[in-house]
């Protein structure tokens, strides 16, 4: 074998095979799913409702009441201030 044939067999062919396999790997999605598209106001909100709260923070009267007073009381009894707006 000449030096060129040796190079072709031991460098060229492995390089081509590696390139093909690497190329195939790029065809698929890198993650097994999709991230939801970003929500901008104006779009329809189709996700489940979300409630955010800083639950790890301790307020001074965190054990106020029995804990069930909220359920027994009528909803309006718990409300102190209210306001609403549209945009």
């Amino acid at each position, binding site marked *: 074998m000449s030096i060129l044939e040796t190079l072709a067999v031991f460098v060229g062919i492995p390089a081509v095979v590696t390139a093909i396999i690497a190329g195939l790997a790029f065809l698929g999605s890198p993650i097994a799913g*999709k991230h939801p598209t970003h929500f901008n106001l104006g779009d329809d909100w189709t996700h489940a*409702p979300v*409630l955010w*709260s800083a639950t790890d*923070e301790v307020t001074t*009267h965190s054990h106020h009441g029995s804990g069930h007073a909220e359920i027994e009381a009528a909803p309006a009894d718990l*409300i102190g201030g209210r*306001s609403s707006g549209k*945009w």
Partner: protein
Amino acid sequence: MASGSRYPAVVESELPFGAVLTTSGRVSAVHRAGEEFPELPFTEKELIRLDDALTKATRSTKVRFNVYLGDLGADTGAGADAIFPTTPEPERSVLIAVSPNHRAVEIRSGKDVADRVNDRISQLGVTAAVASFGEGDLIDGLVAAIRVMSAAISAP
């Protein structure tokens, strides 16, 4: 949480397809390739900003700030009233409820903090939120409302 006790917490027959209740009580669920991940449609940065704002406001005022995002129904005021008792620590909290589909924002405060978070302060929050919502930025508006209200509430 004031959602009442519910037993059992997980009903195996109500679990979605591909989810199973293990003997330890943990729910093991499958994610099928190609499906959307159960994530929020916001960037990590936005969620961190909101989280920081909620934490700072709750810490500085000792009033729990809650944000609800979702459908409030045709009568958004009544919807917010119905959700308010189910939020954490409702009597000492502020609830900012946004219904994007109705383009409405509702703010409620608990009766124990009504002297500090009165109608005037909740109106400040609405004004701050609506300004950013008008420009189409949801998280910006929420953060602005939380900051403005926590700054206006007198310290405990």
